[in-house]
């Protein structure tokens, strides 16, 4: 072995690189595992589902196997009125977000309450489950926790889904997939900066806002407004619809691409969307030959555009 004369060098190399890995990987991980999830973080991860990018359950990034977020105004079993509450519905077979099988991710307090009062360990992917977010006390302090309503209240996914109107169902998890697939994060960030962004883009995220979320898709190159709180700045479905179909309809100077292809073949009322005609009309409008731009079709219930808008508006 001709490396004999390099023995010291090789050992030094191991020491140097090992030391650097120790400081940059091991030590931060000690801090990061201690982070307890915030309520915002718990809600976000429950609505996103297991993975926001490529996964075996959704290999083509079509938004398969993702939970639905449902706004409940009455008890789905008894029909009694209740305060508006979000329920996170995982239909049978949909993969749970990682904190359900691995509650440790939630951090002290959140984990303990979710197990003791929330019974999340009784949830089974094969049967599906409905989760709620509650607040409780653990060792004298307040924490959010996850309640497995399928175990505690016998709310099964189909009971919950059939008790509400379609407009109260949001496909936020599938929308996050669209966000990643369509590369929105190459222009938009999901990370208001700690130093400068408070006024315009809102509060920067807290340490515990990301537990159980992957990918975080912060984005690094901001060619466009930060979107972490876009739902609070602008909650108009109509505006989003027009803006995604063709940003220049609402913002003539925008450099955002058109995402009209996310509408698919048919609109909400089942009519074919004639893109060529739309574009021709739009060109006539920009050339000054028409007074009004053509109408933007309403996206169908199961179109990618609908999912994306659900996701964007959920970013509060």
């Amino acid at each position: 072995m001709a490396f004999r004369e390099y023995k010291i060098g090789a050992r030094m190399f191991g020491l140097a690189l090992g030391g650097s890995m120790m400081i940059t990987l091991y030590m931060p991980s000690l801090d990061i595992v201690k982070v307890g999830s915030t309520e915002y973080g718990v809600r976000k991860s429950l609505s996103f589902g297991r993975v926001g990018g490529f996964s075996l359950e959704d290999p083509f990034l079509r938004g398969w196997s993702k939970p639905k977020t449902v706004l409940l105004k009455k008890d789905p079993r008894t029909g009694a009125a209740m305060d508006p509450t979000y329920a996170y519905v995982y239909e049978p077979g949909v993969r749970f977000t990682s904190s359900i099988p691995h509650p440790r991710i939630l951090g002290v307090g959140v984990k303990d309450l979710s197990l003791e009062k929330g019974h999340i360990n009784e949830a089974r992917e094969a049967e599906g489950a409905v989760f709620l977010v509650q607040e409780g006390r653990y060792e004298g302090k307040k924490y959010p926790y996850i309640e497995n309503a399928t175990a505690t209240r016998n709310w099964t996914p189909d009971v919950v889904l059939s008790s509400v109107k379609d407009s109260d169902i949001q496909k936020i998890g599938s929308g996050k997939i669209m966000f990643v697939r369509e590369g929105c994060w190459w222009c938009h960030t999901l990370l208001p900066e700690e130093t400068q962004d408070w006024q315009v883009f809102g509060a920067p995220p807290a340490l515990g806002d990301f537990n159980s979320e992957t990918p975080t898709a912060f984005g690094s190159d901001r060619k466009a407004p930060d979107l972490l709180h876009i739902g609070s700045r602008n909650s108009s479905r109509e505006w989003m619809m027009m803006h995604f179909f063709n940003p220049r309809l609402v913002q003539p100077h925008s450099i955002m691409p058109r995402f009209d292809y996310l509408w698919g073949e048919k609109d909400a009322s089942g009519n074919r969307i004639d893109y060529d005609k739309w574009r021709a009309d739009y060109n006539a409008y920009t050339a000054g030959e028409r007074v009004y731009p053509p109408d933007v079709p309403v996206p169908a219930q199961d179109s990618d555009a609908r999912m994306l808008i659900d996701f964007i508006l959920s970013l509060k």
Partner: protein
Amino acid sequence: MFKYLFAKGDDIPRGTAAVYFGISSIIWFVIGTGLGSFNAAKLAFPDFVTGSEFFSFGHMRQVHVMAVIFGWISMAFAMAMMYITPALGNTKLWSEKLGVWNCFLWNVGLSLALCLLWAGISSGREYSDFPWFIDIYVLAFIGIPLGLNVWMTVIKRRTQGIYTTNWFFAGAVFMVWIVLFVGNLPEYFQLTGLTEAYLTWWFAHNVLGLWITPVAAAIAYYTVPKITGNPLYSHRIGHLHFWSVVVFYSTPAAHHLMSSPLPEWLKSFASVEGVLILVPAIAFVSNLILTMTGKWHYFVDNVETKFTMTGVLLAIPLNMQGGFQQTRAINWYIHGTGWIVAHAHLALLGFSTFLEASAVYYGLQTIMRRKLYSLALANFHFWFLLIGFCTYWISMTIAGLIQGAAKIYEVPYIDTVIAEHPYMIARWVGGTMVFTGNCVWLYNMWMTAREGTLIPEGRLPHELAYER
């Protein structure tokens, strides 16, 4: 190429793998910069080619990045390793056949991976965009065979010591294994939250710091002494460079996330280590500039030296930016703006591309034993690359400063978009010049392979006069 995949090891001529890698890298460079120029056009004129997801900016941006990193830069590195490592060890490549297979699997895997990315099948993690099965492929069929070949060649060398370049090569191929494995752990094991965010940037930082920067520098340590005939100014400084890369460059990953909620100590530590990157940088640049003493006319006369030294000189602004822009005092202003895009191109298209180009120019001539077809075309390539790059760099730096100011004075975002428009056009012009230059290069190299003057045994390419 295919005929050598199943040939007997001894029947494969020496340098075959290096030639394949060299030609592949140039082709990927043309593809990568072509995509870059197309993307830039879309940022200047958003309705240029619209209405299909395959020509949407969000689908193409990452294909450009991955094509230049894995196709151009890394394949040029592989080509450099396949001919410089044995040359410095006074031996032949450990396994030419493994090299040919490596090149074949690399091209196949990368084409597949880029098609998937183009279709939007991505992990959603910047720089580690490939889904996890591609990550495994990259490690198993690209990283490991390459590293194995380099290591075995170094071990089987017939020289007493190991020259600086080979320290870097052997160190970097080993470090990149670790980076590829650890950086993708979130995808293999479903790690979530801040761990995922941090590891994404840990990967991005270390691919640059432990792979691209040291290997590019190692090329200069070879080509400058080889062509000018001056010995390296100081091996000690070379070793200072090597060790400080291992110690300092591997630690500042968190400085990419300065304004995110990571532990404060980690950000401060990363920022200090980030300034210490100046140690390897200064060691590298000063060592090579001093090596050139008395031979600066090569900077004008000789294309390869022109490329090498331009790369070395571009390392000065690169590291000055790199060292300081990540400190809290400056980072708050420029984070997330075009400044960073400019800086990234200074690193990959400025500093490192010029060094790789010199290795590919020189290596292909040496192995094929053919003199470069045309000096004029090579100069055309050089100037188009340099002017195109500078146009890009300057316009994006200005755009970044505008964005920074807009961020602080909280102007409505759309005003920033309007103010940036002229610079987006300049960026597109610059990118297109780079692309044009590369097309010329591909032609020049093709003609060199076919019609370049034969270099007699015992002579080096730069010793012959140019004919065109």
